[in-house]
Every structure is written in structure tokens, then in C-alpha cells.
């Protein structure tokens, strides 16, 4: 027995065992990760309050700060007094009941209840069902916000949320069979003043380092690719299926009455438009089917204000009654534009929620089509359309053929003007509700402008505009002298700077004094051209007010912007590409906005055309890229063939031979010396694990281990017993050498090059099945 041979050393098996051991999270770390993800989900969900118009700001601030605090100090929930847990449930129920009873709005109350529950979950240690509850609560908030806003943010948010929630569920499943060691299963986790061990030992930087170690990047990458693939396929399907009505199918928006954020209303006080200008968010995106039609400076009219009183312009009730049609529910409205020759130009508007219920338009139009039936009142002669209420979601409408002359034809008013003797000045947009002092002051100003001359409307407008520009500077912070008189006249009398409303208002008063009907128009001016999505982007900061003066000779209202181009010159402005290039926006904001427009274009469809176009574009892009690659390859081959076919002479031959020799020489030099040199360079650096020889040896060891595992599985089927007579020993020697290269002292290394070659040979022989190869 003493002479028993030693058991063969399990060298070849050793790397297999080493390779198969993957680092794993400890139970504590899993619990920490679970806590982290739960709070991140809470934060994500609570963040949706930014998009919803629900009064839950205090709760949001409370919940998010609690979530962050509980992340930074996971021991905090243990300090929550016991009575909080005792009274939490009754308190929440009472709060919800009182909320519903007092405010009588169900959905906002539910949102607040949801946030309260989330808050409670963040300040107590969670068990599995509590974690699941967080997912459901968060999903509720995200879905509500998504349905209410129908925006790109929703898509991004739900994608991100889904990813996090999937990871969270995985960790919940993993931690379930391994209860945190400080909390025996079944004991109330929330009650104790003793935080669980994982909370005490939380060290986030350490956890992230561990996460990096533990993560199986290959699997993770595969998962991400899979996820992206599923999302991509869904997106394709989404593009391909017929559109369904987002909002009509869900009635959630009816539950929340949303107020206009900034809002153009029928009444504009001085400073209102300027307030809107402070807001740089997107108000409107416009797609144009024929870019050559784009005017140099588009004026997006929304509302005319014809009555002035005490510093306030408003839409007179008379105008509203006379000119606006009865409210009706329809999906289109025919306008008054005179049909233009040539193909129809489509202008597709995406009006953001909360901007106004008055739709921005460029003037008379042939037809407006809505995506779905809307309740609206049209004023065709004014070229205005008003929806019933401020839209809560993005409103899309498509306009066919605008009249881009810059003036608004108004037969009704022309008719009235011809019979003006029968009407009061208030019916003729001529009224000046001012004191006599003010009126005479206006007369004085007018005299200064026209020299007492009676001029045609256009010249009058131009002169008044020029005079206003000459006397006042444009500024968002106006200087109006204090006093008792009408504020506009005070401003007119002084020479202080003013904003667009003051200019427009003064213009209207002066024009009326001159005997021309005039009114203020509010809306947007200009906008930028998004270079990425090729559309107009109009921001709230583009809000503007200007004047319109009635020209009795043509029967039209001429635009008169004291701060812009002279009246009646729009027709001469550069159009199309020149106009676009002047407004080109290539900023990062534009890039983000383009995503928004892309999303709108996709979910909003007026017909199947755009859908078909998109699908065709996708198909073409795929086909074209394949075709281009083939062509490039063919060209390259043809070039090579031509080069080879060209007549050969000695010089050319020598050149080619020289080049080939050079390449071979370089390769040889590299294999002989270069790699050794490279290794020495690395060794000089002495980076841990950075040594290329050690790294390569490690790779070979892992490959051999993997091959053995594969083969072992095969062999297990054929012969039982790990030490069967046919057990291959091909690797023993080479593994020993590789191990020496990987872990041994550098002075004892055999030639790495030779060892790696033998490893390659052994592997090849092994996988081809010839077990017994000759050992070098």
C-alpha cells in the first residue's frame, strides 16, 4: 500500500473549476440593490408630477426627498417612530376620503393617494409584497401621466421604468429565498428600531464596484440587445398597424381640468404676452408639405382684440357673437381662402397643450382638418378658430393652402364699412374709449405723424410704425411714466422703451384716430426651422402682438407690425429655402425637439399616406444600404481586376514585389520581435493583470477549461467514472505551462510563444476528437 502511486493531479480539471466560479452578490448586497431600485422607481414615478397638472407638488417634494434620504441613509426608516406605522393606514384613508370629499375630483385625489402610499413605502422597510406594490403604484402614475400628455417623454419614461422594474423583480425573486439575516422571516420588518444588517452595512460605492464585478456583461449585453429588439419590433408594428384614437379611447383627461400654463385668452392685459415670452418651451410645431411656400416671417395669428378699455385689449362680445359661428362638433372646417393654382400645400400643426384654445393660423385657409372630431367655433371672416376649451393634450390639425399675402380679406366688414353711416364706431373697430384730453393728445401725435394729411391706409400704417419705432425702443421691461391718464397714452407721450403690446396698442389707437378701423392681433411671430426634423418650431418666447389696419380700398385688413416688416411687404419677402436658411436651428435643443416632432408625426396621422411613406422609407433604406455595399464591393473587385489586367513591366513588377516583401518583412518582424517588444513594454508598465502574457495565458486556460467541460458532458454519456482509462491527458503538460505563465514567476517562464502554440494545437486536436496527440 505504501507504494501506491499518487493520484494523478487534477490539473486539467482545476482551471475548469476556477473558470466556472462566477462572483455572486451576497444576500446583504442583494437587499441593498433591492432598496436602491425600489427608491429609484419611486423617484421615477413621482417625477411624473412635472407633466401632470395635478396639485401634488408638496407630496412630490416630500416623497422624493424621503426617497433620496432613505437612499443616502438606509438606516433612517428604523428611526421612524412606531406610532407612524400604527396610524399610517387610517391616516392615509382619511386623507383620501377628505380629498375626494373636499375637492370632488377623483383622479387627482387618486394620484395624491398613490404618492402618499409611495411616501409611506419609502420610509419603512419593505417586504416582498411592498416592493410589488411600489411597482404597481409607480406604474399607475406613469400610465396616467402618459395618457394625459401623450408625449415622447412618456415613451422614454415607460421604457426606462420597465427596464428598472424588470431588474427589480429579478432581485425580489432572488432575495426572497434568502431573507435578510437580521430580520427573521415573519417578524414585522417595520416595527423594530433596529435596522436590518444590510442597511447598516450599506456602502454604495462598494456596491457599485461589486456590481461591476458581478455583472456578466455578455448576458447583460445580450439582454439589452433583446430588449432593444423587442422595442424595435414593437415600434415597427406600431408604425404598420392602423392608427387608433389615443385620447378618445381613454377618458382619463376628462377627469383632470387643466389650466393653460401661459395661455392666450380673449383678454390681454399689458404684459401678458411678455409673460408668455419668458417661457422658452415649445408651443407649436408645424410641418409644411411644400417648403417653397414658407413665408419669410410667418405671423401665426391666434386672436384679434378689437376693444380697448383701461389698458386692456379684449375680444369684444359683439365680435364674438357676430363673427364666430355656433359651436359645432366636426372634424373639418372650410375657410375663405381663394383657391390657389398648383398642388395643395398641407400645413400640419402640433399645438402643445396649455398654449391656447385659439388655433394659430397664418391667415385665410381653404380647409382645416382635425385628427378627430372637435368642438369648436370658427370665425371664417376673421380667419380664426377657437376650440371649446384649452386642450389638455397636444392638438393636431392640418390646414390646406393658406393665403400667405399677409392681409386678411373681410367681406363682412367691407360691407359694413360701405354702409358705415348706419353703424356706431364700436361696430366699426373705430371706438376710442378715452377722455377728451387723451383723444386730443392722440390727435396731436397723429398730426405730428401725418402732418394733417389724409393718407391711404397703407401709408398711414407705415408712417405710424416708423414714428413709433423712431420714438421708442423695444424692450421687455417697459418704462411707463406714472400718472392718472390712460397707460398707453402715458407711454406714447414719453419716449421710454416698450414691448410689443405697447407698440401694437399705440398703433391701433393712432390708426383709429386717423379714421381707420384697427385692431390688435396676438399670436406668434417667426419661429425656428428645425434642421433635424425639417419643421417649424415655435416657442412660447416667440409670442408677439401686432396690429391690423383696415384698408377700405381693397377691403382687407393689412398687417402692421411696428416692430417688424412694414405693412403689406410680406408678399415681397424671401420665401422658401431663403426663409428656411435664415431660421435654421441646429442646436441641441433642436435635436431634442426633433424627437418630439418625430413622435407626433408617428402617433398623429391624417391619412395612411405618411404611414406608407415611413414604411417605404424604412424598406428603401434597408435595400439601399445592401445595394450600396454590393456596389462598393463590385467596384473594388473591378478596380483590382483592372489593376491586375494592366500591362506588366519590370518596374511595376519590382514595385509590387517590393511592397509584398515589405509586408511580409513587417509581419515577420512583428511576430519575431514586435510582440516580444510589446510584452516588454507592458511588463515595464507592470500593470496588474495588464501583462499581455499573463492575459493571454489566462485566455488559453479558460478556453481549455471550457473545452473540457463540453467534452466532459459528452464523455459522461459514454463512460462513467471521471478517471476512466481513456481520460485525455492532452492538456496536462500545456496547462501546467500556461499556469506557470499566468501565475508563475516571470524568471521561470518558458517561451510564451511556444506555449501558446502548443495550447492551440492541443485545443485543435482535442476538439477534433483525436485525444492522444504527441506531446511536444
Amino acid at each position: 500500500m505504501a507504494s501506491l502511486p499518487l493520484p494523478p493531479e487534477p490539473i486539467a480539471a482545476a482551471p475548469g473549476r476556477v473558470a466556472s466560479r462566477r462572483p455572486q452578490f451576497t444576500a446583504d448586497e442583494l437587499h441593498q440593490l433591492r432598496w436602491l431600485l425600489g427608491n429609484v422607481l419611486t423617484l421615477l414615478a413621482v417625477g411624473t408630477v412635472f407633466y401632470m397638472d395635478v396639485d401634488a407638488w408638496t407630496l412630490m417634494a416630500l416623497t422624493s426627498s424621503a426617497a433620496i434620504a432613505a437612499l443616502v441613509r438606509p438606516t433612517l426608516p428604523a428611526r421612524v417612530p412606531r406610532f407612524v406605522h400604527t396610524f399610517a393606514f387610517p391616516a392615509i384613508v382619511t386623507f383620501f376620503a377628505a380629498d375626494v370629499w373636499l375637492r370632488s375630483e377623483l383622479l387627482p385625489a387618486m394620484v395624491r393617494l398613490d404618492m402618499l402610499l409611495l411616501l409611506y413605502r419609502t420610509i419603512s422597510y419593505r417586504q416582498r409584497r411592498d416592493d410589488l406594490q411600489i411597482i404597481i403604484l409607480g406604474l399607475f402614475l406613469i400610465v396616467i401621466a402618459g395618457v394625459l400628455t401623450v408625449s415622447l417623454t412618456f415613451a422614454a419614461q415607460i421604457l426606462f421604468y420597465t427596464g428598472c422594474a424588470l431588474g427589480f423583480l429579478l432581485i425580489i425573486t432572488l432575495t426572497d429565498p434568502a431573507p435578510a439575516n437580521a430580520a427573521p422571516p415573519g417578524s414585522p420588518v417595520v416595527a423594530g428600531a433596529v435596522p436590518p444588517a444590510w442597511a447598516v452595512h450599506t456602502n454604495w460605492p462598494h456596491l457599485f464596484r461589486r456590481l461591476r464585478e458581478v455583472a456578466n456583461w455578455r448576458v447583460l449585453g445580450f439582454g439589452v440587445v433583446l430588449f432593444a429588439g423587442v422595442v424595435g419590433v414593437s415600434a415597427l408594428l406600431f408604425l404598420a398597424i392602423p392608427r387608433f384614437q389615443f385620447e378618445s379611447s381613454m377618458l382619463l383627461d376628462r377627469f383632470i381640468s387643466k389650466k393653460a400654463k401661459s395661455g392666450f385668452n380673449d383678454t390681454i392685459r399689458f404684459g401678458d404676452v411678455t409673460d408668455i415670452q419668458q417661457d422658452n418651451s415649445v408651443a407649436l410645431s408645424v410641418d409644411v408639405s411644400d417648403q417653397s411656400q414658407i413665408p419669410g416671417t410667418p405671423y401665426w395669428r391666434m386672436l384679434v382684440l378689437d376693444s380697448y378699455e383701461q389698458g386692456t385689449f379684449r375680444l369684444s362680445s359683439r365680435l364674438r357673437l357676430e363673427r364666430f359661428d355656433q359651436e359645432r362638433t366636426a372634424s373639418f372646417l372650410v375657410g375663405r381662402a381663394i383657391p390657389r393654382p398648383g398642388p395643395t400645400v398641407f400645413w400640419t400643426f402640433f399645438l402643445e397643450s396649455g398654449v391656447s384654445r385659439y388655433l394659430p393660423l397664418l391667415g385665410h385657409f381653404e380647409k382645416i382638418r382635425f385628427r378627430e372630431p372637435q368642438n369648436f367655433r370658427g370665425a371664417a371672416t376673421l380667419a380664426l378658430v377657437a376650440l371649446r376649451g384649452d386642450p389638455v393634450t397636444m392638438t393636431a390639425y392640418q390646414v390646406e393652402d393658406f393665403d400667405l399675402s399677409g392681409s386678411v380679406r373681410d367681406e363682412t366688414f367691407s360691407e359694413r364699412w360701405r354702409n358705415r353711416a348706419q353703424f356706431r364706431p364700436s361696430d366699426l373697430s373705430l371706438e376710442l374709449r378715452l377722455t377728451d384730453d387723451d383723444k386730443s393728445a392722440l390727435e396731436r401725435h397723429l398730426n405730428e405723424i401725418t402732418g394733417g394729411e389724409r393718407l391711404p391706409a397703407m401709408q398711414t400704417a407705415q408712417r405710424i410704425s416708423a414714428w413709433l419705432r423712431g420714438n421708442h425702443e423695444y424692450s421687455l421691461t417697459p418704462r411707463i411714466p406714472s400718472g392718472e391718464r390712460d397707460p398707453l397714452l402715458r407711454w406714447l407721450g414719453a419716449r421710454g422703451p416698450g414691448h410689443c403690446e405697447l407698440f401694437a396698442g399705440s398703433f391701433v389707437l393712432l390708426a383709429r384716430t386717423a379714421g381707420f378701423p384697427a385692431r390688435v392681433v396676438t399670436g406668434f411671430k417667426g419661429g425656428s426651422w428645425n434642421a433635424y426634423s425639417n419643421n417649424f418650431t415655435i416657442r412660447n418666447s416667440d409670442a408677439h402682438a401686432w396690429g391690423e389696419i383696415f384698408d377700405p380700398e381693397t377691403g382687407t385688413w393689412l398687417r402692421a407690425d411696428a416692430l417688424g416688416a412694414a405693412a403689406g411687404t410680406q408678399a415681397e419677402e424671401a420665401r422658401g429655402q431663403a426663409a428656411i436658411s435664415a431660421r435654421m436651428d441646429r442646436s441641441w435643443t433642436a435635436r431634442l425637439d426633433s424627437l418630439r416632432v418625430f413622435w407626433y408625426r408617428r402617433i398623429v396621422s391624417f391619412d395612411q399616406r405618411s404611414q406608407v411613406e415611413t414604411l417605404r422609407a424604412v424598406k428603401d433604406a434597408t435595400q439601399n444600404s445592401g445595394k450600396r455595399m454590393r456596389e462598393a464591393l463590385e467596384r473594388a473587385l473591378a478596380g483590382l481586376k483592372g489593376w491586375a489586367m494592366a500591362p506588366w513591366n519590370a518596374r511595376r513588377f519590382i514595385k509590387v514585389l517590393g511592397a509584398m516583401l515589405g509586408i511580409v518583412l513587417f509581419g515577420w518582424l512583428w511576430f519575431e520581435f514586435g510582440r516580444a517588444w510589446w510584452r516588454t513594454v507592458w511588463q515595464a508598465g507592470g500593470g496588474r493583470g495588464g501583462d499581455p502574457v499573463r492575459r493571454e495565458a489566462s485566455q488559453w486556460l479558460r478556453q481549455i477549461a471550457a473545452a473540457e467541460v463540453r467534452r466532459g458532458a459528452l464523455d459522461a454519456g459514454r463512460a462513467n467514472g471521471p478517471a476512466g482509462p481513456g481520460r485525455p491527458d492532452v492538456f496536462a503538460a500545456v496547462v501546467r505551462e500556461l499556469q506557470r505563465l499566468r501565475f508563475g514567476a516571470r524568471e521561470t517562464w518558458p517561451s510564451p510563444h511556444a506555449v501558446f502554440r502548443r495550447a492551440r494545437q492541443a485545443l485543435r486536436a482535442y476538439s477534433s476528437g483525436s485525444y492522444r496527440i504527441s506531446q511536444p
Partner: protein
Amino acid sequence: MSDFVPMAQITEAKQALDRLRANMRVTIRGKDDIIEQVMVCLVAGGHLLIEDLPGVGKTTLAYSLARSMDCAFSRIQFTSDLLPSDVTGVAIYDETVKEFVFKKGPVFANVVLADEINRATPKTQSALLEVMDRARVTIDGEPHAVGSPFMVFATQNPVDYEGTFPLPESQMDRFLMRLRMGYPEASDELIILRTARGGYDAIALNPVVTRTEILGLQSLAQQVFVEDTVLDFILKIVSATRTESEFRAGVSVRAGVALRAATQARALVHHRDFVLPEDVTELVAPVFAHRLGLARQTSDALEERRAVSAALKRIVASIPTPQ
């Protein structure tokens, strides 16, 4: 460590260790893994604590190791009335030379078997402390070196706690490894049953390794190369025990050094002049387990042993092995 070992020395070491192993296998049947651990401990120059129920061969193991080497062997049976001087020796007045003469105790040997060490009082146990750490005994301020090589081979029964004094942690830390014998396989036990044997003295083994060879092996083991990533691996395991919430405290610096020494010894036992990560993973439990205590209370000692081993296994599994 940086000086690499000539291959000839490794081969010599291999032959010596093979002889030792073969010799021990004659008496210790079916326990190749235990024999290997004992050899690792010997080559690393550490002390060994063997824990198990009575009668599974703890003492036989110590005997067979001692008899296989050309070394002085002594055995101390620890009892509750054993005095420190019974272990280390005592200075007595010699009338003939008119001065105190030091009478060496049983520790003055190369392999000392401290049988049932936890039966002795703490005072007597601690008498072993210095000698285990420094390999010398100081009596009346005078140091006396014990044998070289010097290895303490302590045994204890973990279950039967009646009338015992558990070893203090400081003393636990001085043992390189703790092993469990376990019951032999049925076939091996049959052979044991067949073999009629009188007692330990009947263990007839010839010394196959000399004292010098053992010393050579020990110094050779210290030169075994440990690559940086492997050292880093050890370090990660050590620091993981310190952050693990299940343990009362992590392992000491001495423990980390001990693990390194043990892996070097294991590499040598496996005829290598460099350490593999596998050496580390194999030795973490025997080297660390007895140095760690659970933070929570356990019902009995075996339960604690199991929980500590499981936690260690989990820690090692959670740290990426260098590849």
C-alpha cells in the same frame, strides 16, 4: 519570494513529500485530503488544531506524522490539573552544581501532540502561547529554544464541553489550520477493523524524511512565487470577512499572512513553484474558519462551525477568481 526556485529543488521536495504521504497513508486510511492538509501545515511551519469526536484517529494522525519524520516527538495529555511547568519545564535547584538547572518539559520536541487541549486550564493553555509563536520557552528570564522544526498538533473535542476551557481567540489565531477528521469510508473502516492493533505504540513506521529535509521544505515554501492577482485575491477575501455582517469580527492580519504561507506550502505539496487561485480557495476554510466567530448566538458549537463555513464559502464564491 522573488527568488525563483530551481526546478531540481522542487523535484527533491516532491520526492520527500511523496515519501511522507505514502508513509502516512499506511496508517491513516481513506483520508488523503487530511494527510495533504497536514503536510501543507507542516511545510508552512504552522500549528494544527484537529477537532472531532473521540476515536476517529486524531492522535493516530499525529503519531503517524511524527513517526514518519526523523524528529523528536512528545505527547502531552491535557487535563484540568496540568500545570504550565508540566508543559514547558521547570528550573530546579541542583545540589551538585549549586544552582538552578532547567529541566526541559515535553514541549522540547519537534512534534508536540497536545491531546485534548481544551481540558487544561487557561493558564496552562497560555503556556503554549509563547512556544507556539516564537518556538522558545522563557523560564526565569532565560530563553530556551525548542526543537526545530517545531509543530504543535493539538486535538480537541468540540461537542463534549463538560469541564472544558474553550481556547481563547488569541490562541486560536496561532493555529495555522483547523481540521476535522470525519468518519472513514465503510471500505476503509473494514480494513481498520481487520487490522488488529494494540495501541499507538504499535504504529510501526519508519522515518522517511529527515529533520533537515523538513527545514529545507519549509524554507523552500517561502520562496514559492505568489502572483499579484493572487495576492489581491487573498486580500479581497480577507477584507470581505471584515465587512460581512454575519461575523463578529473579520480575520486578523496574521490570518492573511497565514493564508499566504499556507497557499505557498500547498503549491509546493502539489509540486509547483507558484501559487494558483485554487490553492487559495481550497485553504480559505481550514485557515480562516477557526479565527471567525458568528455575530449571533448559536445553539451549539457544530452549528457555529457550519454557519461560519457556509458564510466563508459564500464570500469566496462572491469574489471573482483571478483567471
